């Protein structure tokens, strides 16, 4: 069964891989954009998949945190789907960029030149939130996965769930802010965070229902929840319509009308019926995201090019392949003993609640959260103070509000790693340890490279017609300031200079190189022997320009 699904996934992946390659190669012209639409399909897919990821966390972490645990398999499936969707989602913003290798500039950390990313931008918040979300989800998944073998880990699960719970809501709020803070009329609305969260959970539930059907089991709570959310979404769509007059028949029909079929017993009790409804919800939400991201007057979905479809297929294929490969790999760890494969387990939620309740930690077990939380708060505070006070190249200083979106993710990151690091390190084998050490080393190197910053040379290829030339300015300053003594061509104004003793040295390229640019700049600014100091009359940059001009003159003389 899983093998077939992996093959289907791989086929979709291969079909889409070509489109993916073309998108990398061509950049943003590969997919449909127009005069007003700068973004297109990758961002729609990003929003869709990040939403799908959230439902996984919601189902396992939030239910667990609220003391409503589902069957082990249900939650593991949900968590695995979170991780796979996140991997898919993370690819698309990268593809979307005009210059992919510059993506690191979004990291909110200073480099040696005083460049600091713009913490006012929702994109920076987004980047941080999602990376943290990915890491913490991975940690949660690992803890949960191995807790069967190592009962020590059991007591970590609920505190971790409590850390993840607010993070999910936070992350999707931030994703919605990408749209809601802008000036695009179609994207405005204070209800966007709620709308996005509801949409995310709704589509994510549909995905988990599909995945559970593949496991031959069903969880009724999730179906009820999905049905409930369909009303929520219908309400939001109505609101959008009343507010902005935008309305899409397909979205509302597939997303709000079709799910009502769940009221019918024949549909509900039939695996295919459930699949039909779930798929219809996914299609509806996918379409809705696309329409939202392309704020054009026309229905942009009609302009789908083959690359757009290819990217959709790529994302589906990647998810399916990743999910079922890991599913097969971990299958012994994923399934509890109580679940018999191949049977429809009815009312699973009820029976499983009993079995899991026993293993739930007592209330006072949360005390292990104290130290990590404290550390998290401290680190966050330090970061906020630092980020606000740091000198950077932006004109207006940051205010606290700009940094707030980063606070929770930072706190959760620090807290969850402090919480889990020791127990997980204890149980991990030698190989994992080596890999971790190597990863840490690589991370250190990357941080160093980040601090050094990328090259600021204009790529020579892009300036093929003529070199950039600021010599004009330098020449100007030279003639007005330096030529009096040094001569227009740098070879001294003989008549004038003879009055000085000792005679100044000739400017040869060799001599200029031995003196070095910096010390020559100093000489210009502070003077030496008979040379007057020019500080205040030329700026440091201009002095540097003059030194370069001297080299230019000296080179010409040869």
């Amino acid at each position, binding site marked *: 069964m899983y093998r077939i699904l992996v093959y289907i996934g791989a086929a979709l992946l291969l079909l889409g891989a070509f489109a993916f390659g073309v998108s990398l190669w061509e950049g943003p012209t590969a997919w449909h954009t127009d005069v007003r639409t700068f973004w297109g399909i990758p961002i729609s897919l990003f929003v869709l998949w990040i939403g799908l990821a959230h439902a996984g966390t919601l189902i396992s972490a939030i239910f667990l945190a609220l003391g409503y645990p589902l069957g082990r398999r249900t939650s593991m499936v949900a968590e695995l789907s979170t991780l796979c969707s996140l991997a898919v989602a993370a690819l698309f913003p990268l593809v979307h960029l*005009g210059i992919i290798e510059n993506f690191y500039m979004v990291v909110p950390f200073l480099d040696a030149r005083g460049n600091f990313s713009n913490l006012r931008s929702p994109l920076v918040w987004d980047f941080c939130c999602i990376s943290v979300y990915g890491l913490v989800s991975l940690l949660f998944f690992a803890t949960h996965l191995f807790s069967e073998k190592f009962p020590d880990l059991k007591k970590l699960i609920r505190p971790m769930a409590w850390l993840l719970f607010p993070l999910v809501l936070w992350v999707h709020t931030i994703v919605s802010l990408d749209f809601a803070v802008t000036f695009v009329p179609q994207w405005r609305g204070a209800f966007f965070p709620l709308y996005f969260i509801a949409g995310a959970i709704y589509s994510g539930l549909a995905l988990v229902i599909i995945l559970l059907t593949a496991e031959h089991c069903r969880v009724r709570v999730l179906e009820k929840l999905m049905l409930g959310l369909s009303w929520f979404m219908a309400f939001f769509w109505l609101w959008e319509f009343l507010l902005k007059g935008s309305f899409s028949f397909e979205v509302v029909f597939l997303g709000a009308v079709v799910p009502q079929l769940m009221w019918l017993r024949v549909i509900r009790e039939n695996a295919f019926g459930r699949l039909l409804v779930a798929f219809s919800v996914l299609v509806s939400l996918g379409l809705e995201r696309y329409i939202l991201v392309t704020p054009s007057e026309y229905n942009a979905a009609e302009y789908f090019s083959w690359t757009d479809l290819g990217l959709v297929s790529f994302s589906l294929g990647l998810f399916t392949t990743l999910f079922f490969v890991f599913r097969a790999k971990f299958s012994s760890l994923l399934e509890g003993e109580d679940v018999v494969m191949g049977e429809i387990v009815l009312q699973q939620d009820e029976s499983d609640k009993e079995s899991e309740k026993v293993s739930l930690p007592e209330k006072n077990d949360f005390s292990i959260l104290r130290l990590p939380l404290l550390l998290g708060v401290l680190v966050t505070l330090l970061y906020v103070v630092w980020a606000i006070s740091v000198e950077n190249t932006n004109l207006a200083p940051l205010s606290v509000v700009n940094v707030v979106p980063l606070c929770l993710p930072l706190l959760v990151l620090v807290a969850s790693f402090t919480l889990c690091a020791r127990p997980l390190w204890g149980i991990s084998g030698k190989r994992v340890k080596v890999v971790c050490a190597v990863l840490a080393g690589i991370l250190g190197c990357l941080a160093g490279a980040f601090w050094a910053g990328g090259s600021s040379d204009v790529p020579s290829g892009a300036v*093929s017609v003529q070199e950039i030339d600021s010599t004009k300015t330098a020449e100007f300053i030279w003639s007005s300031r330096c030529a009096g003594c040094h001569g227009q061509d740098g070879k001294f104004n003989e008549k004038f200079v003879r009055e000085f003793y000792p005679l100044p040295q000739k400017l040869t390229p060799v001599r200029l190189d031995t003196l070095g640019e910096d010390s020559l700049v100093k000489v210009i600014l502070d003077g030496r022997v008979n040379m007057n100091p020019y500080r205040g009359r030329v700026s440091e940059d201009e002095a540097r320009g003059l030194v370069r001009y001297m080299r230019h003159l000296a080179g010409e003389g040869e």
Partner: protein
Amino acid sequence: MDRREFIKACSVVALMQVLWGCRRLPDLSGAKVPEIAEFEREVRLALSRAKGAFDLVQVPMPGPLEVHGASPVNRFGMAIDLDACDGCGKCILACMQENNIPLSSKGERDAGRFMHWIEMHGGAPAMCFHCGNAPCEKVCPTGAASHTPDGLSTMMYKRCTGSRFCGANCPVGARKFNYVDSVKEGLARKFNPEVPLRSKGVMEKCSLCLQRLQDHKHAQMATRPGVEWRGSGLKTACSEACPKNAIIFGNWLDQDSPLVQEAKHRNLYVPREIANLDPSVVYMRGRR
């Protein structure tokens, strides 16, 4: 790790490298350079496809920038005289030549996009309005779009990752994205050696002829040190090119600037979308 796993790992690395290699800049020696006539032709084409007129609202005269760190003596801007402008499009061409703006490829033109920093909106030229409270700069993740103390909304091309968030957030659509590699495609010509050509994947827009301002400032510092620089006597390329003198450049904070002298007696308008973003470029109509 056994042999198979090793080979697998190697092929993954190789695949990643191939994908990465796709993004490398191609070798450009021998790229074609377009004729000036082609630029003129494209301007005519753009004029024939003018966009809809803005909904204008009246605003008071721009004052000092309300940003921390802004200069108290300089705020550069322009006023476009709608009574004088006849929409001839000479400013568009002048701007292209001053700033090395590339031609658009056929695909781009079909999608309705030009790289021109000035576009006609219902017969009135519109460039970036250099909003004092610019929404495009707020959303730029890397800080590539930022403000200078003297009121210019600028772009650091090397710092741009091409996320196009700023483009989506400019209410008047003043930002232009380099969707194609114009040098490689033979669409760019370096008229002005002081302005770099932009590579594929970065955003650009009207810079208020930043290079002219810089040169002017340096020249004054060299020739008349100690005199405060207020940009007097300077003109941008578009204002220089206008035969009707309909585009007036100047310093909003300098009472002697031709801009203030003229704008004092006129009604000032800006597009409704950016009316409360404190734009530095305005339209003038009617006398007061």
